[in-house]
């Protein structure tokens, strides 16, 4: 089912949370709501679920205005960050709760609970109460409860937040399949950019009481609309270097470690402006001195990060940059090294506002894939 939000406002006791949020989610899409805590992600979910009412604005599901429709009549499945299992019921009864509400036959309920439990690999613990379940099992039970009635709208409020890293990773790989099988419209809330990129057809980045950017994972990662969004995606974080583009021999250049490094000619309009140059750590390579675009740095520390090695290096002006390379590839010796930047994906931001400066000839909507 499609969901339309138009101009939603909500505050709690003088505390403005959402200020005019509009959102259009087509049937079958998985939309990720991403942002720091307190950005209003959970509130937005609750508004759609109907357990909180908006101060202003309309929520329309499949063309029907949800104003005045009670939660139990909205046909929604929801999983909570803290699981919110019924502590006095066993896992079976928890998963069955959306089915009992619809007065299904006992055997029908039994079949469906078994089916969901098997899918989520918790069929062996159906008789356990929440207190007897491990964290991972609780999380799966909560998910099972949301899926049991095959709702056409699934709201998942950071369901992987409270499970350990290994389980989180496993579930991240498993979820797309589960969700596709459901054929539902999914809204997934998370604070983990990896989850957001891995699961979302589109990502809505929240901040400042609303949505600050919405787009596919590619658009958000490659063309973030501000430095703030750029910093939220990617680990290690994007390097932001203060630069003032100048006119070089062959177009605009920026000074890095007293070396002129060419930037795209389409940034000519930014010449003379105080800018931040955004460079992803994986776009910087260690090179031999004298290679094109190479500039010297001093190595401060090497910190392995999952399947990558991250190097903290200082430029000649004592600016710190992070360089990332696949683990196992040869790196620099301690001390001095030279790096070069792959400027193809470099981003230029207005230093004062943080907004991205769009290159004159850049493809605007259709990102090269």
């Amino acid at each position, binding site marked *: 089912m499609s969901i339309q939000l138009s101009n939603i406002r909500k505050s709690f006791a003088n505390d403005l949370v959402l200020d005019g949020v509009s959102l259009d989610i087509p049937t079958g899409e998985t939309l990720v709501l991403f942002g720091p805590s307190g950005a209003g992600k959970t509130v937005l979910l*609750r508004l759609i*679920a*109907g*357990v909180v009412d908006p101060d202003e604005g309309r929520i329309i599901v499949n063309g029907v205005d949800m104003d005045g429709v*009670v*939660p*139990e*009549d*909205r046909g*929604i*499945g*929801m999983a*909570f960050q*803290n*699981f*919110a*299992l*019924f*502590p*006095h019921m066993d896992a079976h009864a928890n998963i069955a*709760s*959306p089915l009992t*509400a*619809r007065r299904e036959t006992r055997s029908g309920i039994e079949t469906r609970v078994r089916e969901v439990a098997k899918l989520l690999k918790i069929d062996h613990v159906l008789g356990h*109460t*929440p*207190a*007897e*379940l491990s*964290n991972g099992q*609780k999380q799966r039970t909560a998910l099972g*409860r949301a899926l049991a*009635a095959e709702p056409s709208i699934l709201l998942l409020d950071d369901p992987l937040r*409270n499970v350990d890293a290994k389980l989180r990773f496993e579930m991240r790989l498993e979820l797309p399949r589960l969700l596709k099988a459901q054929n539902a419209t999914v809204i997934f809330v998370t604070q983990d950019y990896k989850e957001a990129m891995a699961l979302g057809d589109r990502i809505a980045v929240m901040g400042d009481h609303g949505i600050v950017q919405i787009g596919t994972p590619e658009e958000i990662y490659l063309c973030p609309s501000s430095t703030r969004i750029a910093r939220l995606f990617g680990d290690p974080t994007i390097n932001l270097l203060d630069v003032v583009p100048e006119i070089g021999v062959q177009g605009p250049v920026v000074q890095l470690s007293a070396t002129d490094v060419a930037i795209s000619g389409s940034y000519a309009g930014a010449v003379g402006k105080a800018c931040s140059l955004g460079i992803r750590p994986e776009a910087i390579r260690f090179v031999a001195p004298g290679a094109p675009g190479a500039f010297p740095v001093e190595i401060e520390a090497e910190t392995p990060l999952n399947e990558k090695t991250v190097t903290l290096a200082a430029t000649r002006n004592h600016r710190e940059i992070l360089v990332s390379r696949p683990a196992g590839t040869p790196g620099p010796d301690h001390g001095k090294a030279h790096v070069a930047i792959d400027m193809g994906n470099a981003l230029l931001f207005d230093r004062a506002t943080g907004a991205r400066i769009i290159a004159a000839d850049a493809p605007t909507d259709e990102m090269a894939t």
Partner: protein
Amino acid sequence: MDQTSTLEKVLRRVAISLVILFFMFPIFWIVLMSFQTNETILRVPPSVIFEPTLSNYVALVTGKLETQAGTLEINFMSNLWNSLFLSAGSVAVGLILGIPAAYAFGRIKFRGSEDIAFTLLSFRFAPPLLVLLPLTIYFQKIGLADTYFGLIWVYQLIVLPLILWIVRGYFEDIPADIEYAYRIAGHSWFSTFRTVALPLAMPGIAAAGLLAFIFAWNNFIFALVLASADKQPVTVGALAFVTASGIQYGQVAAGIVLSILPTLALALYAQRYLVEGLSLGAVKG
């Protein structure tokens, strides 16, 4: 740090024994007194060695009080029954009214909800004597004086605020998400209240009910003013032991023992509901 020395263990046990002795001694002494005659009770010095007698209990059960001045009629057993009926009745009414109200105050934030809840609590602050005089007059006008119904109604002043405030706290402690989850699963608010909120607040309801029962049981002043002899609870009925020929300590003690028993039985029964932890594991964190 976790290994305590033997001396510390011994000292700890001695201290605990002292505390128990301090609190339990009066009750222990009363139980002893209830098996003695007035003479053995009043002898100097007191002694724990005596010929036990059931005469005090017999007197209470038969309703015949033998004093030096002759035989007095007392209706202690009917007082006991009155106490039981009044206390149980008021707690029942208090729970029926108080639980939904507590749920409303705990869950729904409506205009003035805090003020109303506080007003209800403030009934507990007013000295009972202050309200008694007007209340007596009203009750006599509308024919509620000296009725069980009237008494149970007045007892709500004692039990209702107590139940309301204790149970409300328990409802507030249930994470709202658990109830939301049940609603979203497709159940009405009433079904959610009955199948989720009520069972999870059960320890609180049991505690509040028990406490309210004890308060109602121990009430003296309302019953003294508003109830005539045949509706009096034990607290008021015990006055009968102060006779012209002195205080009948033995019977008083036996009366106390008998009147502790129902509350004690209830407390022991309710204990398993008082054990919390039912909600453990529902919500992470």
